[in-house]
């Protein structure tokens, strides 16, 4: 079973991403949106945690990264999607879990 995890909180103000990465299984995807996109900023601890999360894929909501001016500062290996891509990710996974 594959799960799409959504994280909408900044890793600098919430443990949502840490909690998510602690439980995300192989084959699952983590979508960063809203303030969650800050986790993908290159050079941060959270970007390191993302790079070390083997077997988990990462996507980021492009409009939210753009709104925060970090689209040029993203760590490698993170797929940028728009709302269409968000919908596709939901369709491609068996379950969706929001880490609020």
């Amino acid at each position, binding site marked *: 079973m594959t799960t799409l995890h959504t994280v909408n909180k900044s890793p600098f103000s919430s443990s949502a991403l840490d909690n998510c990465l602690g439980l995300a299984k192989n084959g699952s995807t983590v979508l960063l949106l*809203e*303030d969650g996109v800050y986790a993908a900023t290159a050079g941060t601890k959270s970007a390191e945690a993302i790079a070390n999360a083997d077997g988990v894929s990462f996507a980021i909501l492009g409009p*939210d990264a753009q709104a925060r001016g970090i689209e040029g500062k993203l760590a490698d290996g993170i797929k940028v999607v728009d*709302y*269409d891509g968000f919908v*596709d990710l*939901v369709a491609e996974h068996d379950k969706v879990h929001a880490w609020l």
Partner: protein
Amino acid sequence: MKLSIQINEGPYQHQAADSAYQFAKAALAKGHEIFRVFFYHDGVNNATRLAVPPQDDRNITQQWTDLQKEHDLDLVVCIAAAQRRGLMDEDEAKRQGKDANNIAEGFRISGLGQLIEAGIESDHLVTFGA
């Protein structure tokens, strides 16, 4: 696929109410079905028709009302969350002895059973929240 959406955050609070709307619009444009949108916790505040945001800002409630009309969406407001926050329709205002009601066009008030049913009937329940 058949989708349902749960919204736990009020309008203009942070971003979840906007994210949910953009997601719903994208899903409908791709031909997916939205079985229900359930407004829970502070999310019920998205359903007030008395909000008057500045003219150059988006009107989140109106956006939902318009999308409801266009796609015949089922927009359900949790009754317990609504009662606590002063959101009511005409019947509920009468029942509680209140002198006004404020639910916007296209929304209806119902119970948590509607959320459970949405979870059962849909392929995916996507939650947006605080």
